[in-house]
């Protein structure tokens, strides 16, 4: 076999393998989207319905707006679930604010670690513990503690615990960006007469801005999709979208897959958009200083 042919075959092999995984990845996502357009009877059909012959926007209408349903006795409103708008707002508020804190404080801490070693490497790794202990271990006493502080069912309460549990990722990611910034650039600014604060503001921040944005969005993803803490620390006011999703278990009509899917599409789409936006930076943040450039 000549070299060229061999190379071509290898090439085809590669595309084949990648495409198989691409299908595995795409299929469930396709299924969510397809289900969100299916009428009730196609949700759990035998054999499965890959694309409904009568696609409908009904699910979206029921989930996101008030929807009229006709039956033999007349017309009735199927309000079904409480509308997710409030949950959407909560999710946005909580994840944006807690991410803001985690990233803001994380940036300062990361700068200190990168430039002045205010935490030793050992302490930096210990910081990871905040992330690595399963939340289920502390959630019961936390809810009790929160209730005495009147933090249950408040945005503040969720923001505090989210900021803490995402801080390790924030510090590690941003540190990896700052580490890449040559020290000399800051020194140049300082010796040219800029104060430390000024240097931070005018030189460091603009240069790691894309990294900070990436970190911000990454942590936004983590908090956006968190379930257990949101479930137990919320009541009426601050239920988030994942909590909202979990109540879509029907008892009489079976699970309302179509409605769930219609909501899931709404919950997931923003994340996918964000993820695509930050894909180049994700890797750096994940590598925890283990990848040298």
């Amino acid at each position, binding site marked *: 076999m000549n070299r060229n042919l061999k190379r071509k075959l290898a090439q085809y092999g590669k595309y084949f393998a990648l495409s198989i995984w691409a299908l595995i990845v795409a299929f469930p996502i396709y299924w969510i989207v397809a289900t969100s357009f299916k009428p009730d009877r196609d949700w759990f059909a035998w054999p499965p319905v890959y694309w409904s012959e009568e696609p409908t926007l009904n699910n979206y209408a029921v989930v996101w707006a008030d929807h009229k349903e006709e039956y033999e006795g007349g017309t009735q409103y199927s309000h079904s679930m409480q509308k997710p708008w409030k949950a959407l707002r909560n999710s946005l508020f909580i994840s944006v604010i807690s991410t803001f804190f985690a990233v803001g404080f994380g940036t300062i801490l990361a700068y200190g670690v990168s430039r002045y070693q205010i935490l030793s490497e050992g302490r930096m790794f210990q910081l990871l513990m905040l992330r*690595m202990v399963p939340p289920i271990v502390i959630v019961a006493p936390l809810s009790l503690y929160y209730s005495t502080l009147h933090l249950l069912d408040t945005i503040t309460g969720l923001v505090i615990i989210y900021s803490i549990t995402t801080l390790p990722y924030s510090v590690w990611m941003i540190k990896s960006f700052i580490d890449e910034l040559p020290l000399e650039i800051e020194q140049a600014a300082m010796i040219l007469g800029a104060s430390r604060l000024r240097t931070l503001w005018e030189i460091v921040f603009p240069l790691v801005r894309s990294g900070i944005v990436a970190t911000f969005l990454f942590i936004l993803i983590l908090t956006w999709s968190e379930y257990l803490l949101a479930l137990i620390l919320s009541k009426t006011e601050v239920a988030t979208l994942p909590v909202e999703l*979990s109540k879509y278990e029907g008892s009489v009509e079976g699970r309302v897959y179509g409605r769930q899917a219609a909501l899931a599409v709404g919950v997931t789409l923003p994340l996918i958009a964000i993820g695509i936006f930050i894909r180049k930076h994700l890797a750096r943040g994940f590598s925890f200083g283990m990848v040298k450039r």
Partner: protein
Amino acid sequence: MPPFPGSALSLLQNMNSSPTSNTNGSTKSRPRQLVQARAVQRFKWSVLSVLIVVLVAVLFPVLMLQLYFSFHGYSVYGGSWWDAEFVGLELFEEVVTDPRLGWAIIRSLLFATGSTIGCFVIGFGLALLMYRPFRGQAFYYILFILPMLTVPIVIAYTGEMLLYQKGPVNDLLSSIFGRQVNILWLANADTALLTVMVLEVWNWVPFSFIIMMAGLAALPDEPIEAAKILGASKWRVFVEIQLPLLRPVIVLALILRFLEAIAEFPKAWSLFQGGPGSATETIPTYLYIVTWQYFEISKGAAMSYVILLIMVAIVLLAIQILRREKIGLDQIYDSRKETTA
């Protein structure tokens, strides 16, 4: 013998005799302290104190409450929690002799190990295929990171839609293999944990994939090219050059995934609630059942401590391993020790 001969000697003498601030009195009479060190210290403690205050204010009371419950036999049916009776180590004894917890730990370890290996093998494989630029790289990259961006609870419900016996997955497998595939994804007690694992792997392959892509792309080209010129096959280059250089990244990918997998809750819970039988009773699931279904707050607290200790031990071990890898890596690449120290 004087240390500096010739002109240097005279210089030195000159310096020693020249009038200095010591004898003349300095025009600026600030205390002899180190500016930078002082500024750094101030900065350090103002930042760290915020961190410490927040951690102490939030986590310390929580851990204390947990400790209180572990030593007091509080029953939700017997009055206020602050009046509960002290029972010493009774609860801990109950917890460590509870066979269900033992099984839950074994299941969790199994689950974490399996899904970690699954994620890693697939993620690394994909990264190996993809780390060199090629047509369509961006397309595949975006597609491959999508599962990580999907909310876990959505994955659980999607799993339910896809995996029933007459569902789309078995249907597709049937048409691929040309005969009826009847895998009981959701009902076989022997494989239920595997089903959760499959979903977990689907969810988190992107994590390993991204890390390994970054790791592979950052490898220096020269040693690899050198090895090729020296006659090494692709496989040998992989085993002898790429793999050792990637070891820290690999260790990291494995450890982080393992730890996050142990904490996995939404998928196992919404799909199985511990069943069928007790096939998916993992650590978080069992803990949830004890605390939120049996309302055995005290037993749950004692269990939490036992698990916390196990996790801390695992994490400390992991940290030890990671640090060793990091130090090794720093030595290989000789990072800018002098300037940053």
